[in-house]
């Protein structure tokens, strides 16, 4: 066999091994998540509060807290993100201001999440004088915002100009063309963006550490420190207590399952919406 063929074989072998490498890591992560997560899973996880050191309990307050923080974060970020994305898509593509904002949006998207936590700590926690659910939700909203902005812009740019022209031709003002025509046409894509942003912020731990903090109580009062899954998982996993470690794995399994479901929804839902629209 010639040297050329040998090199070729080695190269192809390397590429196959590389792909296998990622698959092995993924299977190992999922295997340990399911294995150790199910061991700690059970009804008490959903019905009991987070326990004190070394004792048994559940994650009820953390689950409720996480759902509230994530939902509120998305509720804040979605309208702002869609509006900002609309402005970017409507502005002249080569305009300096839009170009700059697009760049800054990218930078915000890639800013380390722990720095968002520090920022919200400074402007919300220090100003109001206490860690709170509001602070946590604000931090999550800032994380979700740039994702929603960029998908909205991309999706609105895909709306055919003829559609907009038809709307304007009927005498509809610009804002109605955008809200009644463009948003409907781009809707499924924007929903995907919102869902992906939600999946992203669900597992975020670092920005909650100094904003929502954590709590062992069941509370729906957003002005108080709020229990949440990621920080609870962090504390329990790092602790020496076995019962806490088990709960941490159960929480990890819960949160990953939730994120996977949202990710699947993000791909399936728009397709379903489009199909329904086509059937009408």
């Amino acid at each position, binding site marked *: 066999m010639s040297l050329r063929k040998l090199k070729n074989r080695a190269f192809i072998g390397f590429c196959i091994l590389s*792909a296998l490498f990622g698959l092995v890591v993924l299977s190992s992560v999922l295997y340990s998540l399911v294995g150790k997560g199910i061991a700690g899973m059970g009804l008490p996880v959903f019905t009991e509060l987070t326990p004190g050191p070394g004792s048994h309990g559940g994650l009820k307050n953390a689950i409720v807290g996480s759902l509230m923080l994530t939902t509120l974060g998305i509720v804040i970020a979605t309208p702002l993100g869609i509006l900002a994305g609309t402005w970017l898509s409507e502005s002249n593509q080569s305009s300096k201001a839009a170009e700059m904002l697009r760049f800054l949006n990218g930078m915000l998207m890639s800013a380390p999440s722990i720095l968002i936590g520090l920022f919200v700590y400074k402007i919300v926690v220090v100003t109001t004088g206490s860690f709170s659910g509001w602070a946590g939700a604000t931090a999550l909203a800032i994380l979700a*915002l740039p994702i929603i902005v960029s998908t909205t812009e991309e999706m609105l740019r895909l709306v055919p100009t003829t559609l907009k022209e038809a709307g304007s031709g009927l005498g509809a003002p610009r804002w109605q063309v955008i809200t009644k025509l463009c948003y409907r046409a781009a809707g499924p894509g924007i929903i995907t963006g919102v869902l992906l942003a939600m999946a992203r912020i669900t597992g975020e731990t670092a920005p909650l550490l100094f904003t929502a903090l954590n709590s062992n109580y069941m509370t729906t009062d957003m002005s108080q420190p709020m229990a949440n899954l990621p920080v609870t998982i962090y504390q329990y996993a790092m602790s020496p207590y076995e019962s806490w470690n088990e709960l941490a794995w159960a929480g990890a399994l819960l949160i990953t399952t939730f994120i996977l479901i949202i990710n699947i929804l993000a791909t399936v839902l728009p397709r379903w919406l489009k199909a329904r629209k086509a059937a009408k």
Partner: protein
Amino acid sequence: MHSTATALTLRPGAINGDSMFHRLSFASAVLIFLVLIGIILSLIDGGWLALAKFGPGFIFSNTWDPVGGEFGAAAAIYGTMVSSLIAIVIAIPVGLGTAIFLAELAPEWISKPVGMAIELLAAVPSIIYGMWGLFVFAPWFSEGFQFWALENLVNIPLIGPWFDGPPIGIGLLTAGIILSFMILPIITALTRDALKTVPNVVREAAYGIGATPYEVITRVLLPTIKNAAVGAGILGLGRALGETMAVAFVIGGANRIETSLFMPASSISSTIAQQFNEATNELHIASLISLGLVLFILTFVVMGAARILLRKR
């Protein structure tokens, strides 16, 4: 937008809705700018006490003594840089290999599910990688690699000292490896997409003159997508620099600069995550926020470079 708004002033009654909508959307867009400026200002303001006291020496000093009130960022910066470098040294070749496998070598029925699985790696939250790294990977790494390395690699000149340390599973090298798993999907996805944009005629021409896949890919395709590949690598580096939770679990939390990659170390983000809520005196808090400022500047420069490269494709 402005021009259309003025054109529409011809229609009475429509002006208000239009200008209001325009203002609302413009205000939301400006909010992005304000948040970013706010982050920078709040980091400077919050860290001022430490920046004023230690000056530029903050970056070069290696002392981190909350009790004595002496703070320097050198060890954390070193840990952040080295762990991120390890991450891209592993993730770039593996990510490129995977991308080539998915885009060029594998048939569709294999590349589709495998591609989806690799993307799934990106959906797993950072804290899960941390737990997995600490409870599953670290013990395996200790027994499977570190003991072996202590016997076989330590005596190699130059790189030997890297592997001369306690085989405890956690440390700088482990943090770097875990980070590489986390940035693998983004590097793979970006280079795979770039490969797919290369027109087929280019491949056909190269295969037509009798080149092997290896030659076609390394001499024709990779040079074509060079910018995108480098951009993907830098983007991965940027991600790794700011990654917090996964690193906090496995890096060990020791504020030292050591030659050995097996030694516990610390990174900027993990130091902030671990100490911020326990910090009681103001100088300690200010020093942690200054660390955040250093991290912000680091990621801003790296990510800015990546974005410019990726755009020039």
